């Protein structure tokens, strides 16, 4: 499913990366622990997190993550937005918490082992 589809499903708002929303997402990595994200074997994944520091975007960039969704009304810091623009990481945000967001995405074919 594309990031655009995910946005619709999770009622998410766009922060930056309008032109990148047709990317095909194959998996989700949902965590507030960047160390966890850095250890994942997943490919073509979207990172879902409640952290809003620039390190989230750095982690996404280095892992080749296709996008980041912020949960619980979090909005990325401005510096993170600048980084995301350069590294072409689309950022979106939703009001739901991590658990609710994952529930909404369950059964969408994003379970990758």
């Amino acid at each position, binding site marked *: 499913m594309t990031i655009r589809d995910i946005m619709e499903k999770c009622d998410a708002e766009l922060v930056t990366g309008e032109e990148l929303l047709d990317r095909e997402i194959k998996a989700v990595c949902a965590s507030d622990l960047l*160390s*966890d994200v850095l250890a994942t074997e997943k490919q073509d994944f979207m990172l879902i997190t409640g*952290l809003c520091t620039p390190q989230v975007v750095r982690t996404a960039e280095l892992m080749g993550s296709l996008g980041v969704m912020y949960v619980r009304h979090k909005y990325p810091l401005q510096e993170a937005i*600048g980084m995301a623009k*350069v590294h072409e990481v689309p950022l979106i945000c939703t009001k739901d918490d991590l658990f609710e967001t994952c529930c909404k995405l369950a059964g969408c074919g994003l379970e990758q082992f």
Partner: protein
Amino acid sequence: MSDAISLGTAKTKQQDISIISELMYQLKVRDVMTKNVHTVAPENTLREVQAVMRDNKISGVPVASDGKLVGIISLDDIIRALDFGEMDSTAEDKMTREVQTVGVGVSVIKAIDEMEQCGFGRLPVIDRDHYLVGIVTHWDVVKKLIFLLQDVVLKAEARERSLADATPAPANEVEGATYEFDVCKDDFENAGIAASTVKKQLQKMEVSPAVIRRIAVAMYETEINIIIHSLGGKMTAEIFPDRVRVISKDEGPGIANVEKALTEGFSTASAKAREMGFGAGMGLPNIKRCVDDFKIESAAGESTTITFGVKFNI
């Protein structure tokens, strides 16, 4: 459970807002005010004043004499003058003399406070000697804040773009291109610069994305460890045509039990590091998993040196 979550959210929101108040405290009225103020002279007629207001689409105009603020004419004053047929009276005759002003060196947060208190959306700005130097509105403050926010975005963009242009230090006896990075204690802001720079160079060499990801992760975890556990250090990445070698050496305080440090889940990370999403004790094991050869040398009270290499071939 849901209580804990909403509490957490509220706390963070409060922190975010206090950053804005801090910014508004640091910003002074002179940083946000409009400098070219339309003024009228005391001897101007209200008809002339009305023309100034209409032409410039403003609802109030300060009356100045030799640059000093002596009064203000508002739209209300004009309406009243129209009512009573007093449009040929002078500004001096009909102006409000007790003008609410704000000092040029006052913080923006104080200025906003004063606007709230007096109920005016705009305040004339005066300097120490009562000279009129500008005018400030809510909108000026908002505009400046938006500008500052956008400026942070632009600066971050410029920094990230410059990573791709990094040139290697002049090579000595080695054949590889050598990139050196200073990594400072607690410097989260620059965490990942080394990893990101090397990634960009490897992309230019068309190394496979999977290999690049392993190198980037190993370097990033190493950088983070220097930032959160050490007094600071240096990372060197040598890029050869077929492999990368990374050497990280910090200034201590070293690791007492290296074997323990290498086990999954062992961590001495601070609360701050954990708040930032690090410190799960997965770094060193992850680095080992990502690289082809790995060496760590450390002892209590000494520097920690980590050396690892990754080959490009599949």
